[in-house]
Each structure stands twice: as structure tokens, then as C-alpha cells.
């Protein structure tokens, strides 16, 4: 072992690491490299997902007849209910378009959705990220919003050829502009690093916001579409010594349970409900 070269090797390693970290963190210039490496790493992610997929397969195929019948009945009831609601939906939507026309405001954004499956979660507890089985090939782009059945989950941050990486609302580096559904008060909801809590920032103590309020995305900032549920306010604390209230909210989406999620394609092409998209 050539000890004499150790100093040189350490120097080279330090230079390489500093260059990498600076390029990635300060200049964000490695997006392309990362996309290529992501694509190359896909097989490992697939292999690591096998236990979870086996569990899902078992859930799907090994069921008692009674349970399946029960589930079928429940789904039929639910379907009926949803159909009834969507009947009203179309007339309400038409009305909404007319009223918006009267108000001279812009039409709602039209959005398509793409069903994606989760194939990986970040192994690091402080990093709330998911890996999805849809990538550049399916038209996924950086900044694309992700929802599940109950609300917004996060946004895409890296896109590989057949996979993409999503940053969740609850990551401590994530923040989303929201408004209170009841009265339109605007705020920012920031991730805390805990899966069940968002902090609502910079809301003055006199603002009308109380536990139970639904926070929906406000669409400010242009990244997330308007009106998706984000979180429900859990606690509001007024400390006379502070200029802002301390507000905690719980994300509406099943952040750590959903395996099937929806990627939303947002474009300004008129007013229509989310359409299923060929996957």
C-alpha cells in the first residue's frame, strides 16, 4: 500500500466532494446528471420494492370470499353516492363558468391526471421523499403536483426516464401557499419534518382562523393548482408575546399510507374536471 500517495488522494477526494456539493446545492447544475443516474439506478429501486410489492400482492390475492363480497357491496354503495354527487357537479360547473364569465375572471385551470404507483420511500427519516414508477417517458416534469384521494401530497423534484422523485408537503424544506376554505385568508404552510404536522406561518394573532378549518391550495406562486385540500387546522395558539399565532395543521392526504397516487397535469385550457389519462 503506497502510503505516500495518501495525502494526494485525500486532497483529490476533498476537491471532488466540495465540487459536487457546491454544484448540486448552490448552483443546482446537476439536474441532467441526476436524471441519468436516476435512470441507471432504477433496477435497484425495483429490487428494494419487492417485499412491499409481495405484501400488496398478498393483500390483493389472498382474501376470503366473504370479505370480497363485503368490499364489493361497500364499493357499489360508494359508487352510487359519488355518481349522485357528480350529477350535481356538472350543473354546478356550468353555473360556475357562467358566473366567472359574468365576473370577467379567468377560467379555472383544466387538469388531467396520471395514476402512478409508489415504488420507494426515502430511507432517511428527515427526508420525506417518494419514488414513483412514472418518469420523463410518461410526460412527468419537475414541479408537477402530486395528489391522492384526500388531498395534495407534494411535488416532483427529480425526473428519471421511468421513475420520478417527489418531495412531500411535510419535508422540512417544503412550503406551500394555502388559503382557508371558509373565508379565503391566505398563509404559507411549511413542512416540519414530522409526517402528521404542517406549520402555518406568519398569521397574525387577530386573523380569523380556528381549529377544524380546511386549508386548500391557493394557487399563488403558480406551482400548485387552486382548490386542492392541503391540511386541516388542528391547533391555534395565541401567545401575547408573539406577533404571529402558532398554528399546527394535519395534512389531508394520507402521506404515509397511499400507494397509488395521482400526478396532475396543469395547463390553462378551459374548465373541466380532472380526466383520467392513458397510462
Amino acid at each position, binding site marked *: 500500500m503506497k502510503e505516500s500517495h495518501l495525502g494526494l488522494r485525500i486532497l483529490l477526494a476533498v476537491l471532488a466532494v466540495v465540487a459536487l456539493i457546491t454544484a448540486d446545492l448552490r448552483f443546482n447544475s446537476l439536474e441532467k446528471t441526476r436524471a441519468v443516474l436516476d435512470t441507471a439506478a432504477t433496477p435497484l429501486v425495483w429490487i428494494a420494492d419487492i417485499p412491499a410489492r409481495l405484501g400488496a400482492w398478498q393483500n390483493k390475492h389472498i382474501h376470503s370470499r366473504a370479505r370480497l363480497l363485503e368490499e364489493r357491496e361497500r364499493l357499489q354503495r360508494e359508487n352510487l353516492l359519488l355518481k349522485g354527487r357528480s350529477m350535481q357537479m356538472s350543473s354546478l360547473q356550468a353555473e360556475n363558468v357562467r358566473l366567472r364569465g359574468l365576473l370577467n375572471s379567468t377560467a379555472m385551470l383544466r387538469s388531467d391526471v396520471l395514476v402512478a404507483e409508489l415504488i420507494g420511500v426515502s*430511507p432517511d427519516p*428527515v427526508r420525506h421523499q417518494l419514488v414513483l414508477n412514472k418518469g420523463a417517458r410518461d410526460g412527468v416534469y419537475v414541479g408537477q403536483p402530486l395528489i391522492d384521494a384526500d388531498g395534495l401530497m407534494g411535488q416532483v423534484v427529480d425526473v428519471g426516464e421511468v421513475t420520478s422523485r417527489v418531495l412531500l408537503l411535510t419535508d*422540512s424544506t417544503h412550503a406551500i401557499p394555502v388559503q382557508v376554505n371558509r373565508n379565503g385568508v391566505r398563509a404559507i404552510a411549511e413542512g416540519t419534518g414530522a409526517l402528521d404536522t404542517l406549520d402555518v406561518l406568519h398569521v397574525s394573532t387577530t386573523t380569523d382562523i380556528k381549529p377544524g378549518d380546511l386549508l386548500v391550495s391557493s394557487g399563488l406562486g403558480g406551482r400548485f393548482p387552486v382548490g386542492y385540500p392541503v391540511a386541516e387546522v388542528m391547533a391555534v395558539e395565541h401567545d401575547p408575546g408573539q406577533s404571529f399565532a402558532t398554528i399546527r395543521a394535519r395534512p389531508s392526504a394520507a402521506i404515509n399510507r397511499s400507494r397509488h397516487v395521482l400526478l396532475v397535469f396543469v395547463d390553462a385550457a378551459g374548465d373541466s374536471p380532472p380526466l383520467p389519462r392513458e397510462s
Partner: protein
Amino acid sequence: MFMGYGVILGSFLLAAVLALIPMPQWLLWGRPEWVALVLLYWSIALPHKIGIFAALVIGVMMDVLEGAVLGQNAFSLAVLALLSLLLYQRLRVFSLWQQSGMVFVMIGMHQLASQWVQTLEGTGARTPLFLLPALTSALLWPVVLQVLRGVRRHYRVS
């Protein structure tokens, strides 16, 4: 020759998969640093083959897999490789449990290096729990050592 590198690469890929497999919630903070353990073994057993450069390459692979800042794992694994290059002669004559003690300290330093880069990014852990993997890794060291030694002798990697 190529067989040898194949075996080493295979062990790292297996460690990477183990590092990614979803864990139950209560084990979240205590996940052993599989890749670091494997790197430690090879750099003690074959310091002329597996050193700082290998650590950098494997680190970048882990950064991509974990979605971390490119350079985070590269940095912390390079620190680990450097430590073991400085200490491997002593480590080889230690008893198993003395080695485990050293592994605890070395992986602890690896975790600190990793935290340091994460703090640059703004996602540093807010609890000292991030040091827990040092403990679980040290406890697993005897197993990893025996398994990899068996593999190395079986395939005559040198």
C-alpha cells in the same frame, strides 16, 4: 481478478438494496448503515483495492438512490474509508468486540459527516437520534464480518 471485483460490487449492491428496503416505523432511525459496514470490511481486508476512490463512487450511487445532495454519502463514506486506511493494521489484530467498539466510533463519525452536509442543505436532524445507526451497525459488525469473510475466502478475493 474480474471475479473478485464482481464479488465486491455484488456485496455493495446488496447493501444498497438493504439500505433502501422500507422499514417499520419504529426502526426508522436505527437502520444499520449497511453500505458503510460493507465498505469498512473491504477496506480493512483489501486496502489496496477498496479505498477513498471506491468510497466516492459508491457514495455518489447512494446519494442518487436516497435522493440526497450529490456528495453527502460520498463525503461521509470517504471519511470512513480514510479512517479505516489509517487504522486497518490495528483493527486486524483487535478482537471481535474491540473491533465492534471501533466500528461504533467510526460509523458515528460517518454519521456526523453526513449530518454536516445535511445541515448545509437545511434538513439536518433535530434530535441526536441520527447517531443510533452507529450502535446498530456496531452490533451487526460481527455478523457482517463473518459473512463477508466467508464470501471472500470462498471466492478467493484478494
